[in-house]
């Protein structure tokens, strides 16, 4: 109880304090608050993972009912990830924001929002009362919305922010319907009442309820086709906020889906295969669009959709495993999903932070303008490369471990499944492989064009590496990425308790990963060591042999052409040209070109802008028609004051007349009921 009060006091106290501090003081205050909150919530979370569950009952008001707080293993896992992201992101943010030191008011707001975002995300993992959950969810959404608006003088940023705000509220709408649906039947907002109610009303109602919650949370998580806000919001926000949004904010959607799986009784086979299908589509669609992007952060944002797809594949497999009473499939599926939540938060925040470094140094995120940064910013380049390898799921890094768990689950299930499911398995692993291959195209492009080769654009300012302190959190994340790759079992063992929550749903025998086929992870870890050793040995041999040999430098071989310019280099668009042509049907690329003509060609230009087809069909067209329809009512808003007064009078009259005609309305409703 004391800890809880302390935890709640920290954000309030810091928020009040921050406006009165200097820029440096703000940074220190924010970070101190983040550390304190991380210590308190982290301590509780670790306690929970050791086996002591945290439960607390607060008396609420007459609307919300009693407010129950509870940290179970699932919440604990997410709390730890949130803490890690905020600790590294906050530290990075202090240095990233230092170039905006003069915008004091803006910084104060940003600092307060950062604390609020942290507190609300942690709160969402703990609260077990739908009413309060929605309020905290709203705090989270609003603070994220305002954080995105940091560079609000830029029109594109405001547009992206508003897009986020609207889509967040659609998500809240669905969640609200879900919570109200239960509370209208049971009179309580407590999560337990969802559990009990759905236990007694299995079948269509539970499915409907789950559907509402799923859509609500899926909008936040960014499953296709609910993903359209993501590619706008991520590039608009400051780098540390993008890192945190991609690392943990969208994961709160995943948390919500997992939480609802624990609460609502559904047909696991059906729900599992639906999630699996949606995730495969998300994974493929996300990465396929990512490849086309020219904006580095937008590219990363589309990759978040892909990774949400991979996490979803894990959840889907886990559910199907529950449906088939298959402990191996279900434990590996959920473990893969949960581990990928951590992994993605690590490498994606690292990618966003390094992209932030690039932005800080060059003031642009346009891939086509960058190039050769590895020589100017070697450490940023190395860290980006590390994260890029990890996100492609390559050994010896963490991404491989979570994907390996999913593959193990799939192949382990292969022998027991019947024909329809075998085809499903084939589809799933082909999708995973394709996602991996496409991610490789994407990140060889991103890394190769941004960091390698020579500069494609002359910058008027000097480009230099960011400060060492700013790189510290990035190295810290990098160390974790490698550690998970090399010691996978250590991390997997932490997952036993969260996974047990799910296997218990169907009373599957599962106490640890021993005997579930994950001992092989030890071999995977060992093989990764072997790879590193091998690379070092070959490196040593080369060093030894080359000692006395000639090592000359010369220009790149131009195949006979002797006056190459940086403009001759392969660009990002040309790198993916053949890919774009092959999959042209899926994309929508707006071209704007003027071709070379004649013997003495004059100027020519070529410009492409990738656009999202789903966005066009799901958002743009309906909006256009809605606008057309609503335009019909423009006569109401005619700008004449007397009309507006008339509307006011009409409104008041109609309100006043309600009691008068109440009897009639009631009678009509009764009549309808009798029908």
């Amino acid at each position, binding site marked *: 109880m004391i800890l809880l009060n302390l935890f709640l006091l920290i954000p309030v106290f810091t928020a009040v304090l921050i406006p009165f501090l200097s820029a440096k003081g703000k940074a220190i205050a924010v970070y101190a608050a983040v550390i304190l909150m991380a210590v308190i919530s982290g301590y509780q979370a670790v306690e929970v993972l050791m086996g002591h569950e945290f439960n607390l009952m607060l008396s609420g008001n007459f609307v919300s009912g009693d407010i129950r707080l509870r940290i179970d293993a699932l919440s604990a896992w997410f709390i730890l990830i949130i803490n890690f992201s905020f600790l590294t992101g906050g530290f990075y943010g202090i240095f990233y924001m230092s170039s905006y030191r003069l915008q004091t008011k803006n910084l104060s707001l940003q600092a307060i929002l950062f604390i609020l975002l942290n507190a609300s995300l942690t709160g969402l993992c703990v609260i077990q009362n739908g009413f309060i959950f929605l309020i905290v969810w709203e705090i989270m959404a609003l603070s994220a919305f305002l954080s995105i608006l940091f560079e609000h003088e830029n029109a594109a940023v405001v547009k992206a922010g508003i897009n986020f705000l609207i889509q967040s509220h659609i998500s809240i709408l669905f969640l609200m319907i879900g919570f109200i649906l239960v509370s209208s039947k049971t009179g309580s907002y407590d999560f337990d009442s969802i559990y009990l109610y759905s236990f007694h009303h299995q079948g269509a109602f539970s499915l409907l309820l789950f559907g509402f919650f799923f859509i609500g949370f899926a909008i936040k998580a960014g499953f296709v086709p609910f993903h359209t806000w993501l590619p706008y919001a991520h590039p608009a926000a400051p780098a540390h906020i993008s890192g945190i949004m991609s690392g943990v904010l969208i994961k709160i959607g995943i948390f919500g889906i997992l939480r609802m799986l624990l609460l609502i009784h559904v047909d696991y086979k059906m729900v599992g295969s639906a999630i699996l299908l949606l995730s495969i589509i998300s994974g493929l669609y996300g990465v396929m669009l990512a490849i086309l992007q020219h904006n580095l952060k937008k590219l990363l944002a589309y990759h978040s959709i892909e990774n949400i797809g991979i996490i979803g594949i894990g959840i889907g497999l886990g559910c199907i495993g529950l449906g088939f009473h298959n402990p191996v499939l279900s434990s590996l599926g959920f473990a893969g999903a949960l581990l990928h939540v951590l992994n993605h938060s690590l490498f994606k925040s690292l990618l966003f932070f390094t992209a932030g470094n690039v932005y800080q140094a060059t003031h642009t995120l346009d891939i086509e303008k960058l190039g050769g940064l590895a020589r100017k910013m070697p450490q940023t380049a190395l860290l980006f490369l590390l994260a890029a390898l990890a996100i492609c799921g390559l050994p010896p890094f963490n991404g491989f471990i979570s994907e390996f768990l999913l593959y193990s689950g799939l192949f382990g299930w292969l022998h027991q499944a019947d024909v329809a499911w075998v085809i499903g398995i084939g589809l799933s692993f082909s999708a995973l492989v394709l996602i991996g291959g496409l991610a490789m195209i994407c990140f060889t492009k991103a890394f190769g064009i941004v960091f390698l080769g020579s500069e494609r654009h002359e910058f008027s300012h000097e480009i230099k590496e960011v400060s060492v302190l700013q790189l510290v959190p990035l190295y810290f994340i990098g160390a974790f990425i490698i550690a998970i790759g090399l010691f996978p079992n250590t991390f997997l063992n932490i997952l036993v308790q969260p996974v047990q929550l799910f296997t218990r749903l169907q009373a599957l025998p599962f106490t640890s990963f021993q005997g579930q086929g994950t001992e092989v992870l030890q071999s*995977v870890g060992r093989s990764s060591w072997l790879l590193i050793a091998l690379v070092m040995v070959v490196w040593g041999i080369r060093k030894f042999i080359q000692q006395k040999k000639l090592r000359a430098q010369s*220009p790149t071989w131009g195949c006979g052409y002797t006056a190459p310019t940086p403009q001759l280099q392969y660009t990002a668009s040309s790198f993916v*040209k053949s890919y774009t042509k092959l999959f042209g049907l899926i994309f929508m690329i707006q071209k704007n070109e003027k071709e070379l003509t004649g013997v003495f060609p004059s100027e020519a230009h070529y410009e492409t802008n990738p656009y999202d087809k789903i966005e066009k069909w799901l958002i743009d067209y309906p909006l256009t028609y809605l606008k057309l329809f609503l335009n019909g009512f423009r006569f109401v808003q005619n700008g004449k004051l007397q009309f507006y007064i008339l509307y006011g009078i009409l409104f008041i009259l109609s309100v006043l007349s309600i009691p008068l005609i109440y009897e009639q309305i009631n009678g009509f409703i009764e009549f309808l009921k009798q029908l």
Partner: protein
Amino acid sequence: MLSLILISIAALFFTGIIIRTKSIASGRKGPGILQPVFDVLKLFRKGSVYSETSGFVFRIAPIIYFSSVVLAMLTVPFGASKGFISFNGDFIFFAYVLALGKFFSIIGALDTGSSFEGMGASREALYSMFAEPAFFILMGSLALITGHTSFQEIFSTLHLGSSITYAIAILASFVLLLIAMIENSRMPIDDPKTHLELTMIHEVMILDNSGFDLGLILSTGYIKFAMYGALIFNLFVGLIPYGYAILIFFALQAFLAILIGIIESFIARSRMNHNAQFIVVLSSVSLLIFFGVLLVLGKFI
């Protein structure tokens, strides 16, 4: 362990045999079978020239490329004898570690800032993405028919009984052979002998590598051939005693090398924009195997 030694020996001869076959087919005498090995040894002794544009990525890329293929080779078994690395799902590791090598060879090429090498890198990235599902569907079908998920267990329990299993094994060797051709950038995807940089894939990516690094890249190619040869061999070996098996192993490797040599002599390279379709066809052959396995297991009615 056995497979490691045998594949290494086979790697020494494999490319030499291909080159010799091609020379004989074109009416020349051709170099000795060990000439590629001598080439590599000579390169190892040479100094190197690095491009001014390139940085640490270019220097480490050949090493990681080589190490990844060696590590992949370590997972390949020899009949019932395990590879150096063997665990459930090792073929996933096999594919992913090869992908790591490819990632580095691609960014190594991009590091030189050459438009030609960028072109090769772009093609390599696209084609390897297409080739991977074929391998996974193939291994998935083999895992399905044997009920195991490690190379060694799959191959040692793969019994060729009915005619349909023979069909599956032959289709599987076809897929593996073509994957080997794609991985090594051979016909009909790529022509190692072409003169024009615009039409190359692999050769154009290593234009700037020299000395030790080039030697590493070339020897990686040799190992890759022998490694896929060993995988094809494993499809048929079953539980034949080691003495005969080793003989058959070398005979098969030689046969494959000659076959590749003949294919390369009499087939022209496809047009670049047809390559993708060609590789996707490979995935459909893998799918055929997949459905064949479902038939064998009686999972279809």
